[in-house]
C-alpha cells in the first residue's frame, strides 16, 4: 500500500510544467541536505565502528600484533599458518554443519506460518507472541536456561526422558550430541524472525489464487506446494540468506553453553572440538591467547567465506525464486 501511494505523485510530476519542476528540484536539494543530515549519525557510526575496523582488521591480519597494540608486518605468514592449522579446518567444518542444521528451521517456519495464516484461526496473536518471544529474549539468558535444561545428571530434559525409560546423554558435553543441542537452541531463537518474514510474505499472496485452486478442486497439500511455496520463494530466499550469514558467525551460544565457571572458553569440555566455530576460534586466538594478528586472519577468512556463500546464493536464486 505504502509503495503505491509513494509512486502516485511521481507519475504526476512528469506532467507538470518545467517551471514547477525547477521549484521542485530546488526543494529537493534542500530536502536532500536534510536527508543527508538525518542519516549522518548512522553513516558516521557505521563508518567509524563497522567499516574502519574492517579495514584495520584486514591490515592487522598481515601483522604480528602485540597484546596491547604495536605490530610488525609479516606478510601472509598468518594466512599460511592458518592453512596448516587443523583447528581452523575443524572449526570451519563445524560452522558449515551448524549452518546446514539451521537451514532445517526454515521449512519448519514456513509450515507453521502457513498454519498460523489460516483464516479464522483463534488466538492467532497469542501464537505469534509465543513464537516471537525467543527473539526478544536475551541470548545469554536463554543460553543459560537451555544449558541448565540440557544438564546430563539433573536436567529437566533427561528427567522427562527417564519417564519413558530413556537415559539421556550429557547433551552439551557429549561430542555426539553437543552440536545438535546447540543447533536446536539456534533454531528456536531464530524461529520467530523467520516466522514474521513468512507471515508477511503469505499476506502478499492474492486470495484469488487460492479461490481458483479451490474451484479446480485442489487438495490442501497441493495448494500448499503449488501456490503457497512458490509464491513465498522470495521470502524464503531472504530468510535463507539471513540465516546463513547469522549461522556462519555463531559465537554466543558456544561461549555461553560450552564453558564452565572456571573455564571460560570451554576447553575442558570434551565436546568442544566438535562445536568450536570460526568465530569462537577467533575469540580464543585473539583475546585469550593474545595472537591478535592470527585472530584477524581467521576473522577475515570468515568474512571472505560469508561473502562467497552469499554471492553464490544470489546467483542461484534465479533458478528457484519466483518474483510473480
Amino acid at each position: 500500500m505504502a509503495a503505491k501511494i509513494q509512486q502516485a505523485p511521481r507519475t504526476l510530476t512528469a506532467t507538470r510544467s518545467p517551471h514547477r519542476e525547477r521549484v521542485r528540484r530546488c526543494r529537493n536539494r534542500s530536502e536532500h541536505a536534510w536527508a543527508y543530515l538525518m542519516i549522518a549519525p548512522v553513516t558516521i557510526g557505521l563508518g567509524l565502528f563497522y567499516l574502519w575496523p574492517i579495514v584495520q582488521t584486514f591490515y592487522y591480519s598481515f601483522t604480528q600484533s602485540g597484546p596491547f597494540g604495536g605490530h610488525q608486518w609479516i606478510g601472509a605468514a598468518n594466512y599460511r599458518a592458518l592453512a596448516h592449522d587443523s583447528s581452523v579446518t575443524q572449526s570451519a567444518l563445524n560452522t558449515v554443519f551448524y549452518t546446514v542444521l539451521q537451514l532445517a528451521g526454515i521449512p519448519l517456519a514456513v509450515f507453521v506460518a502457513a498454519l498460523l495464516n489460516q483464516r479464522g484461526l483463534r488466538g492467532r496473536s497469542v501464537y505469534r507472541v509465543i513464537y516471537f518471544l525467543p527473539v526478544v529474549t536475551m541470548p545469554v539468558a536463554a543460553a543459560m536456561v537451555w544449558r541448565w535444561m540440557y544438564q546430563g545428571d539433573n536436567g529437566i530434559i533427561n528427567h522427562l526422558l527417564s519417564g519413558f525409560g530413556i537415559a539421556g546423554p550429557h547433551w552439551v558435553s557429549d561430542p555426539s550430541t553437543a552440536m545438535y543441542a546447540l543447533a536446536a537452541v539456534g533454531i528456536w531463537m531464530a524461529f520467530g524472525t523467520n516466522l514474521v518474514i513468512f507471515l508477511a510474505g503469505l499476506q502478499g499472496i492474492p486470495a484469488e489464487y487460492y479461490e481458483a485452486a479451490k474451484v479446480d478442486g485442489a487438495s490442501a497439500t497441493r495448494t500448499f506446494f503449488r501456490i503457497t511455496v512458490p509464491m513465498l520463494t522470495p521470502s524464503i530466499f531472504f530468510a535463507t540468506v539471513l540465516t546463513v550469514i547469522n549461522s556462519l558467525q555463531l559465537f554466543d551460544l558456544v561461549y555461553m553453553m560450552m564453558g564452565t565457571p572456571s573455564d571460560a572458553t570451554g576447553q575442558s569440555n570434551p565436546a568442544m572440538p566438535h562445536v568450536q566455530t570460526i568465530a569462537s576460534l577467533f575469540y580464543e586466538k585473539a583475546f585469550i591467547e593474545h595472537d591478535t594478528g592470527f585472530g584477524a586472519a581467521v576473522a577475515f577468512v570468515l568474512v571472505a567465506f560469508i561473502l562467497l556463500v552469499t554471492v553464490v546464493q544470489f546467483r542461484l536464486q534465479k533458478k528457484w525464486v519466483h518474483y510473480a
Partner: protein
Amino acid sequence: MPQPSDQHRMKGRVRSARPAVAAAVAAGLVLAATGCGSGSGSGSGSKASGGPVNLTYRIWDSTQQTGMQHIVDAFQQANPNIHVRIELVANKEYWTKLQADATAGSAPDVFWMNGPNAQLYESNKQLLALSSNVLKQNGVDLANYPAALNQLYNLGGTQYGIPKDFDTVGLWYNKKLFDAAGLKYPDASWTWQDVQNAAKKLTDASKGQYGILAPPYGQENYYDTIFQAGGYVIAPGGKSSGYAKPEAQAGLKFWSDLVKDGYSPSLKSMTDTFAAQQFESGKIGMYYAGSWNCMEFSKSDTIKDSVDVAVLPQGVKKATVIHGLANVGYAKTKHPAEVEKFLAFLGSKQANEIEAKDSGVIPAYNGTQQAWVASFPNFHVQSYLDELPYAVAYPTSKNTSAWQNQEAAVLAPAWDGGEDIGTAAQQLATMMNTALSKEQ
C-alpha cells in the same frame, strides 16, 4: 502486480532494520566510550590545585567486594583527598576487558593481577614499576609477604605488584561418607595410595556416590600431583615444558586413572555441573579445593557440618601449588603518587587484617593469616597454612594463557576415556614448547 512491490517493501523494511540496529549499537558504543573516558580521566588537573583525586580500583570477585569496600573506607578515612571507586567486572570478562582498556590507554588506576597474566602486563610495560625507593617511601617492606608471591610479580629485578592474598590447595573430605564406609579421615600421613584406596571404597555408583572429583584442572589437580611426583610444568628459566618427563606423566595419570576406574564422575558430568557444586551435593567423598572455596563451603547448608579439610596427600614428596593475587597500578595512570599510596595501604597490615575477616581469602601479609583461620572455626583451614614450607609457585611465562588455554583441550580426550595419557602428555609438551618459543 501488487506482489513484487509488496515483497520489495517487506524486504526493504527488514533490511533497513539492520543499519538502525547498527546505529543504536554505534551510539551505545560512543556513550560507553565516553563513559569509560570520564571514568578514569575524572579528577585530572585537580592535582595541581590539591583538590580530591578519584581513583578506580577494579576487582573481579563479587564475594570480596564488601571486604574491599571496608579497606577502601579505611583508606579514605586516612586520606580524605583521595576517592576510590570499586569497579566489579565478572571474572569471565575481566581479562578481555582489561586488555582492551589497556590497549586504549584507559585501564583503571589500580587493579587485581594474577600470576598467569603478570608477565604479560609487565613485559608490555602496562604496570607501574614500584622501585625500592617508592616502596620505602610508602612504608612497604616486601619481607612481609611470602617470597614465592613477591617473585610472581617481579620481572628482571623490578617489582610491579604488592601481594594481596594467596591460595594453596587442600584435600576436602565428607566425614559422613567416610564414617559410613568405616574409613579413617585423611591426615598429614596420607599418600596417593591412600587416596586411591579411599576413592574406591567410597564409590557407590548405584547411589550416584563417587569417591573423588578428578576434573582436569591445573592448579587444583594435576599441577599439584606433578610437583608431588618430582616433576615440573615449566622448566626453571621458563623456556621449555616439563610435560614430556615421566614425573609429569605420573602426576597426570593419577587423575585420569581415577576417572577411568569410575571413582570420579565422568568429565562430561563435571562439565555439566561444576566440580565444587558436585561436592556441595554431599555425594562426593573427596575434593581437592583451593582455599578460596572455604567461604562457599561454610555457607552451604548441605555440607557445612559434614566436611573438613586436610593437607594434600604426598606422592614422591609433599607439594602444593601456591598462587596469589597482587594489587598493581596502571603505568599510564594520571595520579601515580596517589596510586602508590593506595597500593601501599592495600598491602598494609591493617588492610590485610580487614581482608582476613571480611573477604574469605588468605591475606598475604605475614602474621595476619590467623584472623583468616579464626574466621572458619568449623574447618581445620590451618591445613592450608601448614603446607607453606613446601609450596611451589604457580607455573607462569610471558604469555601463560597461550599454552594454558590449550592444556584442557589436549587432556580432555584422555580424561574422557579414549586416549592414552602418555600420548596426551607428549602432545602437551609439543604444544607448550611451540607456544613458549613464540614468546622469545
